């Protein structure tokens, strides 16, 4: 389904030295699977997702969805992916209905079908009551619901979620968790990036632990426990960070 193959990306750093944001990352995600791409801030999670979506050109490597290469057909990949991020905003002067219809048009969805999907999604995510209010006056949580619906309007087989609960309160976060459960039951392949490891443990089947652009560990929770000898993802990560800082101190 999703195949990430030796994906790397470097950015120009100070003194013309390239900074490796993502370094030789490879993994696979199947249909109906929720994959947690975890790591602290600056680990390279968002960069990896952006490369997978075709928003950012990889320095090397490729990513494929249903054997369609993102390097060759970025627009075709975008058609198959729904992208959720708290950094993505809403159109202040449009209503949620107008905005969702506009996004549906971007994905060539028939207007009648789009209306039907809006009705379904507004019931699922409980935003029927403010479907025709201006987005600019909605609260953060309400905007996030619109964003979740926006990513699903074209019914993509793959969902990429980048820090979907950042800035949300408990109720807002709960909506996101239920949304992810819904995606799983719908048989979608989901990749979720977060540094909230406790949350990730609750809904992800497999994990990739990313640190400084490199995938340090990959597998199910059991496999990670066997690899690291730790039971909690949080502990595994703290150990990873500690070992790095120890190496840094020695050098």
């Amino acid at each position, binding site marked *: 389904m999703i195949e990430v193959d030796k994906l790397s990306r470097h950015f120009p750093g100070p003194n013309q030295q390239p900074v490796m944001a993502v370094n030789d990352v490879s993994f696979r995600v199947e249909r109906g699977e929720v994959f947690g791409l975890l790591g602290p801030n600056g680990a390279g999670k968002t960069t990896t997702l952006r490369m997978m979506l075709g928003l950012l050109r990889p320095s090397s490597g490729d990513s494929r969805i249903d054997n369609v290469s993102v390097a060759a057909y970025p627009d075709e990949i975008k058609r198959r992916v729904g992208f959720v991020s708290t950094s993505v905003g809403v159109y202040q002067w*449009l209503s949620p209905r107008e905005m969702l219809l506009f996004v549906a048009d971007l994905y060539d969805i028939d207007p009648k079908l789009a209306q039907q999907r809006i009705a379904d999604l507004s019931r699922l995510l409980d935003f029927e009551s403010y479907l025709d209010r201006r987005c600019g006056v909605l609260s953060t949580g309400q905007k996030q619901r619109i964003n979740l619906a926006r990513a699903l309007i074209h019914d993509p087989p793959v969902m990429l979620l980048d820090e979907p609960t950042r800035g949300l309160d408990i109720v807002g976060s709960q909506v996101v968790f239920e949304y992810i459960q819904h995606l799983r039951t719908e048989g979608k392949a989901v990749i979720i990036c977060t540094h909230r490891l406790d949350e990730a443990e609750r809904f992800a089947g497999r994990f990739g632990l990313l640190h400084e652009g490199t995938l340090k560990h990959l597998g199910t929770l059991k496999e990670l426990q066997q690899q690291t000898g730790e039971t909690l993802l949080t502990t595994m990560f703290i150990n990873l960070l500690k070992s790095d800082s120890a190496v840094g101190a020695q050098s």
Partner: protein
Amino acid sequence: MSDRSTIITPTPESTSRTWRLARKELREILRDRRTVITLVLMPLLVYPLLGVIMRKGVLSNISLDNIEAHVCFESEADDAIFATQVGYGNQLRVQADPQKTLLFQPADSDNPSALGAAQPLKYQMYFLNRAKPGETLEQQVADGYADLAVRVVGDQQTQVNNGGGTSYFRWEFIRAEKSAVGKRAFLEITECLEALNEDYTNRLLRLNDLPLDKPATIASTLLAARSTGPSPLITFIPLALVLMTMTGAVYPAIDLTAGERERGTMEILIASPVPRMTLLAGKFLAVLTVALLTASMNLVSMFATLFALGLEGTLLGNVGFTMIFQVVILMVVFAAFFSAVLLSITSVARSFKEAQAYLIPLMLISLTPGVFSLMPDLKINGPLAVCPLVNTVLMGRDLLLGNVNVLMFAIVLISTALYGVFALAIAARIFGSDAVLYGSGGTWTELLKRPAIATSAAPISVAMCCLAIVFSLFIVLGSIPSRLNTTLSNQLLAAGFTSVILFMAVPMIVAAVARVRFCSGFSFHLPSWSMWLVAVLLGGSLWTFIYELEVSMLTDERIEFLKKLFATFKLNLTEVPLWVKLFALAVAPAICEEFFFRGFLQNAIRQRTSAALSILCAGVLFGLFHVIVKDALLFERLLPSTLMGIVLGIVYERSGSVFPGMLLHLLHNGFLVTVSEYEKQLTSWGIGVSEHQHLPATWLLYATVPVAVAAVLLYRNGRASNSPLADIS
């Protein structure tokens, strides 16, 4: 791994999506009150305000049919004396000259215009007594409260000499030096009082039986200045229009690019399967629409103010459909150009604030040439016609005055449109690129740096940049050879050399800077033998059809016009050796123009579009360059030259090389030059080829054979399509 990848044939993007995108952008923009304020309120306020200022201060040299002067007095008694004396003087003046009438309004009347409307008058002046208690007359005038203050000094003694009473007063007038209305009121009133004096003197003379004749009678005739520069106001109007159009486009341009990035909605667009160029086109259309709406609002408000002030007859030429149409076309092209410039700049910015910081210098830079063009004696010429912004302001002025030069108008439109296309190409390169969105290229300046890797063909932005430069230089340099004080042969050789600079040197420099490989970038490939044959066949035959087409498009009137035009050029081509003519009119244009139009330009356009579109674009541009000849626009050349360009484009597309086109072009021009060289001999043989006569029908019949053979060869032996889509599939 790549062998497992699925292969997909991309579906072409529909143009209706661009319109839908633009509609959504417009909906968002127009719901924002800030836009509406800029769009509607600003023009509605600015022009009436400017009108008031103009009327108060600047219009001293402009005749006014209706003015309203505010006159104040120290007392009601003075007011009454003024009404009686000036009123009587006015009656005397009207008796002497019925054309002159002065109305003034008593202090208690509320409706001054009612008096004016009662009879047809040349001048209507209303005096309103608006004394302000507690202030001296000088203060009232200095404060601008009154245009003129009148102080009446006198003993009001009445002498009874001749049965009638005469009063003696000293009239003191106080007015501001720069007040045009004050000056006019003063002149009108003193004329009335002079009429009183004149009447008094005449009565005294009659009483004493003295002759009325005077030792000296004076008559004066005022001659209009032979050449008066246009009023600065008339240049100010297009400048204001241009500035307001720019203002209208600024906010939506920032909002739809940097604003979207700041709000995080840009990612929605970039993550969708819509090509960046389509997204940009939608935004461009939206910005252009708002800019045009602002321009229209300004135009309407401006004209309404001019009509309300009664200035339209004085300032403007004949306001008619043609003038309004030309102004609208100019505004559309300018708005498109400036919208593209704005989008290319604001696409770089990461936030609203950053975009504003970039645009302030742009606006200041734009203002400088605009103000420069306010100079009244500045006339539009070749270099100024290709200077962005200055050309629009000057052309706007000429359009409003009604003395527009069609050639300059075309040059202004074409150059502005080309700069717009260039700016749009830059915007397309920047908009939504990961370097700008995520800073992946370090900084956005990386985009404009010389690329590290050489490319096989020029990118569209580079090609458009080159086209804009070549067109500007074509206008500026193109007329130099004919101005050289030398023989016609030398002038022709200089023209050939100019072609080399324009169409070869400039593209080569641009290509070198943009790191475009020479051989592939200019299509220097050896074609198959069949394509050489095609070139020979078409080169030897096609000119007959092109010539016939050009002749058939000429009317008798047009032929007369062309004869006169060419007579002014003083081209005595008979004294020029044939080899010079062949070099300047056949060899140099053929090689240089093919080098640029097909080898470079069509090649670059072809990388991003279909074969048909690239052929058409290069062909039309080729045709446009051939319409501009010295000081005239030869419209009849547009269709034949464009068709010729299309044929050359097809040969280039099928051969993949620039060489067959060069040969075809050379033979084509060479035949035309040779036929005109041996015109007399041909005429003596009964073959009319001079003075725009038709060619013998048999020539055309014979010519169809090689054209048909060439068409078959092109169809069967051309290279396989080299479109980007074909490469993928």
